[in-house]
């Protein structure tokens, strides 16, 4: 039953990625908008099971992004970020399938609690980072573009979440 559900959700994720891909034939911006809308829709359909399917969805979208670039007639090699994204996506798919196949319990109540807690901390750290960067920029100490600002926040959240999660996993109680 559970396997059937997993299969259904993976089909939804692949269908969403395909839809994004097909829409790229019409307009790249439309495909981007559909990708975002698709992520929200899939997260709504899957409800509490999103955390199990998230790597699969993310990977599908990343792989689709590379194909979108190629289908739009652009030279994929001129978009190294997307190529890298596609490779990361493929690696995530491989890892997710490998871990699922091993049959080990990947997430129990403790790891889920730790994951949620590390997410909360990383949001808080990102908020502090926004405040710091804002005042740096406002006071003229350093001028940042929107891309730089977004990049700093992206990596702050990713890295802080991973580090905090690792720390909490080594500790006993997540409370």
């Amino acid at each position, binding site marked *: 039953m559970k396997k059937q559900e997993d299969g259904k959700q993976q089909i939804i994720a692949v269908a969403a990625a395909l839809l994004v891909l097909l829409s790229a034939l019409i307009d790249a911006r439309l495909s981007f908008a559909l990708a975002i809308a698709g992520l929200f829709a899939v997260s709504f359909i899957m409800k509490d099971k999103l955390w199990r399917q998230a790597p699969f969805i993310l990977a599908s979208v990343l792989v689709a992004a590379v194909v979108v670039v190629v289908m739009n007639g652009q030279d994929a090699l001129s978009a190294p970020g997307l190529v890298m994204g596609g490779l990361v996506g493929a690696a995530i798919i491989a890892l997710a399938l490998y871990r699922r196949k091993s049959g*080990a*319990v*990947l997430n*129990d*109540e*403790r*790891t889920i609690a730790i994951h949620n807690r590390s997410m909360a901390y990383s949001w808080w750290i990102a908020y502090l980072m926004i405040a710091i960067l804002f005042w740096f920029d406002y006071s003229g100490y350093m001028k940042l573009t929107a891309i730089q600002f977004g990049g700093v926040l992206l990596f702050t959240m990713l890295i802080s979440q991973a580090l905090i999660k690792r720390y909490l*996993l080594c*500790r*006993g*109680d*997540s*409370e």
Partner: protein
Amino acid sequence: MRTRIKELRARYNLTQEGLAKKVGVRRETIVFLEQGKYNPSLRLAHDVAKALKSKIEDVFIF
């Protein structure tokens, strides 16, 4: 919180991995439970006690 998981596990010849599989958690969770470093949910406490053929109050000592 103290637990008698290790003692009961030995009685029923269960490894940490085996108990973890029985109750559907990671082995690390059993390790921390045995060390009294993790407060389980009521559901997990019930499952562990059931797997060790004991009552919750006999496994987890507050």
